[in-house]
């Protein structure tokens, strides 16, 4: 007897495993001074830390969206508790009204009325064509004309709140890091000034948005009346999973095969090279398309495997990650093979060989640690590419499940509306902007990581 039933989706497991792996890796790194030094350089990079702050906000949303449950349906006492078929996440619970307050159809950002005229029956007047009031957006206003003032007031309050929160945070940082001056002049070893500046900007934007989101649809609603802001929030998890889980699939393949090919050479090398040349020669999109089509057949012909639609969409998402991973390990593999070829000629490897150290031990102790920087660089560099690829694939129809909210499905659903008069632009604009911010942050972070880890740059 409880109010909800916890649902653990496969992707949730992977997300939390990734988080655990990240923390574990962090602990490992803290014991290896060269890697730690490189991460310190990342920490000192102002663009790197600013983008990391933004990324962290995205990750937080993604994590909240990765705790799933099914709420209990109202039931008579004594009856077996029934759980809803719909799978919700903690994020859904936190943003409550955003998910449930659906309008009839399109409404523009912060609107009080629908976007299109409808024919309604007005008692005493007859049928009129007018813009009907929204069911939720701005209903607290007696007169829609007050909207401007109300929005401004709410935004103003939010800005004030943001300033307070930010000042508190800044004071905390300053107290811990040797005073205001040290922080602002960039004399701290960690780029606190960048983090604080970014936090300030984020607070200034996000707090007004969320305060307004209680009364309005800040980014409007889509064709079926769903809040666009809510969709954006839900898309974040999809993008993160595509970007992270894919590398998780790709990494072991690329690392193991690349090192083995480069270290043992001979027929092993020939075989692995053949394998990746073959996979590489199939143009990526086409290979993905073919694999996704086949996966669709499997899913569609086995409906009995999935208890809920969410589970099906989830497994499809993971399958997509898997396919993307299988098709994208070749580049990193070739890179690692080349580096291993160079490393194995280095004298410390020969010294180890002269001691009769076994090959696998040499690989683990001498080669792998000296390739870590390439792996880390590849990992962060691939992320943004994968987020962008998801949108394209979803548009082509070989991306995530159409019922799953993602930037790609949002764009795909909204792009036809540019042809309407007056134009419906907010859905597209919101999706593209959110994606741009995520990818830009990822790219800037990747640059900082690359600069810090690339031995040539150091």
């Amino acid at each position, binding site marked *: 007897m409880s109010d909800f039933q916890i649902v653990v989706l496969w992707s949730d497991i992977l997300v939390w495993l990734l988080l655990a792996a990240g923390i574990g890796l962090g602990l490992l790194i803290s014991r290896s001074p060269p890697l730690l030094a490189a991460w310190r350089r990342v920490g000192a990079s102002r663009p790197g830390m600013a983008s990391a702050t933004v990324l962290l906000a995205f990750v937080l949303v993604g994590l909240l969206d990765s705790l799933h449950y099914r709420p209990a349906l109202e039931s008579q006492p004594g009856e077996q508790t029934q759980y809803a078929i719909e799978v919700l996440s903690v994020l859904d619970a936190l943003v409550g009204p955003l998910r449930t307050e659906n309008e009839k159809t399109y409404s523009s950002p912060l609107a009080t009325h629908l976007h299109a005229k409808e024919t309604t029956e007005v008692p005493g007047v007859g049928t009129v064509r007018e813009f009907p009031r929204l069911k939720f957006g701005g209903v607290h206003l007696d007169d829609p004309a007050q909207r401007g003032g109300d929005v401004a007031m709410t935004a103003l309050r939010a800005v004030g709140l943001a300033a307070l929160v930010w000042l508190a945070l800044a004071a905390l940082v300053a107290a811990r890091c040797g005073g205001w001056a040290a922080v602002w002049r960039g004399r701290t070893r960690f780029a606190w000034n960048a983090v604080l500046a970014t936090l300030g900007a984020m607070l200034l934007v996000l707090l007004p948005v969320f305060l307004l989101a209680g009364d309005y649809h800040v980014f409007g609603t889509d064709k079926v009346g769903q809040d666009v802001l809510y969709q954006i929030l839900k898309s974040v998890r999809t993008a993160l999973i595509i970007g992270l889980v894919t590398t998780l699939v790709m990494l072991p393949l690329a690392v193991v095969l690349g090192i083995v090919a480069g270290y043992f050479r001979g027929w092993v090398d020939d075989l692995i090279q*053949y*394998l990746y*040349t*073959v*996979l*590489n*020669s*199939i*143009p990526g*999109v*086409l*290979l993905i*398309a*073919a*694999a996704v*089509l*086949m996966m*669709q*057949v*499997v899913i*569609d*012909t086995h*409906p009995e495997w999935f208890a809920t639609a969410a589970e099906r969409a989830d497994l499809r998402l993971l399958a997509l990650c898997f396919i993307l991973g299988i098709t994208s390990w070749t580049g990193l593999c070739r890179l690692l093979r080349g580096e291993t070829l160079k490393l194995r000629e280095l004298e410390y490897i020969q010294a180890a060989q002269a001691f009769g150290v076994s090959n696998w031990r040499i690989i683990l102790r001498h080669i792998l640690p000296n390739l870590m920087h390439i792996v880390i660089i590849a990992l962060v560099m691939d992320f*943004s590419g994968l987020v*962008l690829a998801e*949108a*394209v694939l979803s*548009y*082509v*129809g*070989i991306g995530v499940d159409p019922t799953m909210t993602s*930037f790609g499905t949002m*764009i795909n659903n909204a*792009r036809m509306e*540019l042809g309407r008069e007056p134009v419906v632009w907010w859905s*597209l604009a919101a999706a*593209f902007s959110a*994606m*741009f911010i995520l*990818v*830009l942050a*990822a*790219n*800037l972070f990747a*640059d900082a990581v690359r600069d810090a880890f690339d031995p040539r740059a150091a």
Partner: protein
Amino acid sequence: MLAYIFRRLLYALPILIGVNLITFALFFIVNTPDDMARMQLGVKRVTPEAIEKWKLDRGYDKPLFVNAAAGGVGTLTDTIFFEKSVRMFVGDFGRADDGRDIAREIKARMWPSLAIALPTFILGLFVTVSLALLLAFFRATALDFWGVVLCVALMSISGLFYIIGGQYLIAKVWKLVPISGFGDGLDAWRFLILPVFIGVVSGIGSSTRWYRTIFLEEVSKDYVRTARAKGLAETVVFFRHILRNAMIPILTGVVVVIPLLFMGSLLTESFFGIPGLGSYTIDAINAQDFAVVRSMVFIGSVLYIVGLILTDISYTLVDPRIRFS
């Protein structure tokens, strides 16, 4: 040289066979033809007869590898593997679901694809290399810094945005060119100009940044110091010494995509209604026309492998170190 090309072609054969086997496994072993039929005909209401008919129409009713019933050579040739996979090597791709010959369709559709992809490629290369040269020339100045920032911002924008935004702004709002469509002969340019422009712009960010790093890598080499020690002007050092060396990785890096230009671009063609191979592929994916997708995978691989061979050849042409040894 001929012997060299011949040898490279021989190298390509096992790779092509590998591609062929992978596609075969993907399309016929992961799912049986029965599954595919059931899926296309609708999972719920499907009769065994309908499935059989579906398979017969497409020639999927045969055994996969060994047809014992056929006897003789037919044991091996009258099979799905031979009919659907091996025959692709001689350019026989079979028929699409709408009954048209895929090979003929490909021949007709590759020209519109090329008409967009080739100008995009050439113009894009010219623009990005020039921009990269500019940034590298003014390296470590404000121009370089903001140029790189702009590049990162540009490459963070989704490719879909370039197309949707460009089409909306230029074709719909400003009405400078037709929104979509394709014409014959010289009339086609009106339709080409926007997709080519968008294609070039969307590639600026990543390519410029990549070429810039190649240029900068050359700038730090010893021979550049020698050239400066000769008293040459910075422009001469750049255009005579650095550009020549940097063009080797740049040119040989892009040669591999030249044959793939025939395949066109999936997104551009579908947005602009260009009757090329890209839109053909997208339509096939949406209609789940497996025969067409399979053919495109094979063609794409062939073109890629041709690209690899061209890359090797172009190396021998542009790099004297390889040309003379």
